[in-house]
């Protein structure tokens, strides 16, 4: 692990320290250590079932919604352990947004979907909400497609549009960090390309942690990549290094498509 010099304080947005996670009695994450760099895209790759989603959902304490889940270890967000029992998970989720694998818009209007995070934060001034909604939709590259039908039901959008809507919904609340769980797995290549471009642009504003099945995607958009296998992080390095010159045999086999 890298030491925490004060000069490096802003370098890491998040630091995972000796994280273990249990579904009931099954240990799914084993001694995870990971540093998420500020304003970079960090990708989590690895074969199916290795625990990528599980790790991602630790960052916004999504696991707290279900009984029987248990963490040990720490995830520090700006040097504060967000897994500590006295930290309200809602506070964490207010600061860290999430985009799920399957688009999950609310059965409300497009506008209301994007505005919901603001309403939760007590915003009620119509003009301010209007402005934020428009900005978020523009940032999610959806504005031009929906500006004439903001009050239509979000379910009427195509799959790719729904996913961009979910991204806009997360962006509108201005989070410090966004978690993406295979955001493009249900999308066609064109929609995928637009979301990838969006993620690359976003990192100026937010820190991004993304789970992806596609190694090409990780190579295209991420700055750092962590390779996971059976609940452990085997290797974590610059994306370029992981793909061209990995240290571990397993990583090499995986990125070269020999298993997974």
């Amino acid at each position, binding site marked *: 692990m890298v030491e925490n010099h004060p000069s490096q304080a802003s370098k890491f947005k998040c630091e995972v320290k000796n994280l273990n996670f249990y579904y009931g009695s099954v240990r799914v994450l084993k001694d995870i250590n990971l540093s998420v760099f500020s304003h970079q895209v960090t990708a989590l790759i690895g074969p199916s079932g290795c625990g990528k989603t599980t790790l991602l959902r630790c960052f916004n304490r999504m696991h707290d919604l279900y009984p029987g889940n248990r963490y040990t270890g720490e995830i520090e967000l700006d040097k504060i352990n967000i897994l500590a029992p006295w930290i309200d998970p809602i506070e964490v*989720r207010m600061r860290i947004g999430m985009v799920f694998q399957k688009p999950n*818009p609310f*059965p409300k209007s497009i506008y209301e979907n994007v505005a919901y995070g603001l309403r939760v934060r007590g915003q009620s001034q119509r003009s301010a909400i209007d402005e934020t909604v428009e900005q978020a939709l523009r940032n999610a590259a959806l504005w031009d497609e929906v500006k004439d039908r903001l009050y239509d039901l979000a*379910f009427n959008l195509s799959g790719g549009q729904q996913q961009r809507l979910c991204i806009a919904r997360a962006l509108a609340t201005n989070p410090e960090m966004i978690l993406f769980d295979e955001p493009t797995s249900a999308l066609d290549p064109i929609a995928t390309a637009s979301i990838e471009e969006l993620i690359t642009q976003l990192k100026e504003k937010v820190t991004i942690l993304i789970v992806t099945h596609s190694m090409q995607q990780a190579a295209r958009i991420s700055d750092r990549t962590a390779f996971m296998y059976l609940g452990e992080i085997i290797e974590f390095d610059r994306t370029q290094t992981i793909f061209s010159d990995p240290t571990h045999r397993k990583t090499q086999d995986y990125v070269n498509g020999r298993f997974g």
Partner: protein
Amino acid sequence: MTIDNLHQLHRLIARNRFWEKIFIVFGILSLLVGIITLLALLIDMTIDGLPRLSWQFFTSFPSRKYEEAGILSAWVGTCLVILVTAIAAIPIGIASGIYLEEYAKKNWLGDIIEINVTNLAGIPSIIYGLLALGLFVEQLKLGRSILTAGLTLSLLVLPIVIVTTREAIRAIPNSIREAACALGASKWQTIWDHILPYSIGSILTGIIIGLARAVGETAPLITIGALTFIAFLPDSPFKSEFPYISFNWLQAEFTVMPIQMFNWVSRPDPEFQSNAAAAGVVLVFMTLAMNAIAIFIRYRLRRRIKW
């Protein structure tokens, strides 16, 4: 495949088909028994009662003369009792359903409560009448009033409301809850802003079907002492002077449609039988109308949402 084998196969298929045909015939017969009995009953009742269905029938009190008798006090009583039932059962039922489904810990205590609530729906309604007689009439001294009747029926409807509420909110996918939570919504915000609005159609449907059942209930109301002959209306809830609204009607004695029917059926003279039939037609129409409203609401609210 040889010809012989093929014949064997045909015989096998024919035998399999035979049982299928037997079942289809049996199924159609069963269906007819149900439908024809029901239709015969309805048609017979309508033929008997139709001559008595007039404006006068709805606007007259019961009377010793059959041609002057009407169901005014009965239908007003039914409406007011059901109003009290709805006001009492809906909030309590929905709140309990939400609590059980979303907040209560899933442990043995929860299981026991769940089993009991489900079983409550199957308890004979007269038992609720006995309970109400002891609790509302004798302990709380509410009298043999509309209030007592409404509360009694709300006990009857409550398990139905709780169970439908739970089923309705269980039908909402977890991905919606997660979406709201991920934006920082508290559990209550998730319920209020999402779970309830998306499930209210199904919940209302269940409530209305429960209320429709309550409209036809007789036994528990006779147990608490509903009268069979009421020749006055309860106090009006609206007043011309301040505060314009009054709750005296809650304490009024009352009768309801099925009790009025029962009263007329038990008269020896055949003329009153047609009064009973006419009241029956009105009662059936009331429950059918409520079910129609339920179907309409479900249709309207569900059409927008497909998971």
